[in-house]
């Protein structure tokens, strides 16, 4: 296999991580909504934590994206 095709395949494999992070972000917001509907009075005070969880989950997906870009544009 030549370098260019290995590069593209590698970048594609690295992009799987973005999908995994999507599951994580969905889980964060899903769980928040589920519990917010059970106790709407407490929901507003937890919004900061919601975004921390979102940021943490999203960061891992973005790192996967960065890795894919590094592989794709490596020379």
């Amino acid at each position, binding site marked *: 296999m030549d370098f260019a095709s290995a590069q593209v395949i590698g970048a594609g494999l690295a992009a799987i991580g973005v999908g995994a992070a999507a599951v994580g972000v969905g889980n964060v917001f899903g769980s928040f909504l589920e519990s917010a509907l059970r106790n709407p009075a407490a929901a507003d005070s937890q919004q*900061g934590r919601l975004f921390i969880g*979102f940021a943490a989950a999203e960061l891992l997906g973005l790192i996967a994206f960065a890795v894919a870009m590094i592989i794709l544009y490596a020379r």
Partner: protein
Amino acid sequence: MAAEGKIDPMHQFAVEPLVPLHVGKYDVSFTTSSAWLLVALALIIGFMALGMKRQLVPGRWQMAVEGLTGFIDDMVKVNIGPEGKKYVPYIFSLFTFILVSNLLGLLPLAVIPGLHPFTTTSHFSITGVLAVMSFSIVLIVGFWRHGLHFFSLFVPHGTPAVMVPLIAAIEFVSFMVRPFSLGLRLFVAMIAGHILMEVFGSFIVSGFNGGPMGWGVGALSFLFIVGVAALELLVCAIQAYVFALLTTLYLNDAINLH
């Protein structure tokens, strides 16, 4: 761009010198990046100046400015407490700057020939400096207030003595990763969104150039890009909010320990 179907999504991030300037070995040209930083600064100053007339009965503009300052004020008060009042100006500058730069990059200014919006926050040199600034403020405040006691940040209350070395190592790594994660998150989120829009934008062009089979692709891409643009507006606001929120949380760690 999009000549002969060749997609070059990275070209939009190229920094081009507007006024070349060299000092010694260093290139300190006035670039597109600097120009858009100045535009962001002018917009923020204009927005604030128009709303700072301090009328007793606020007009619409003053309400908008008060809403923005009140939002940051609340966030700092909830997360740090009364001690955080000193840091409101920094968090506020951070939030407004990131928000305005993010939104400026999304403006459809390219319909005017020769004008291309440039997202200053899509460069790690900008977001990295912002992150390092936040991190240094956390370090300075922490050591200023607590001296060497600041290192107790790495050992949470009630850690069993056996676990201390392991927990301290983990906490230390998670502490040192903060500036990178702060800067990287904003920069990658901006870059990813812009690449996505560029790629689907060129799908529209090459789709409609590609005969009847391509028209469907072009139309679908067009519908998709409208949704992505709306999502990008949300991401711009969320990233600015997350950056400001994480900075306040890190400051809270430094001020109150834990």
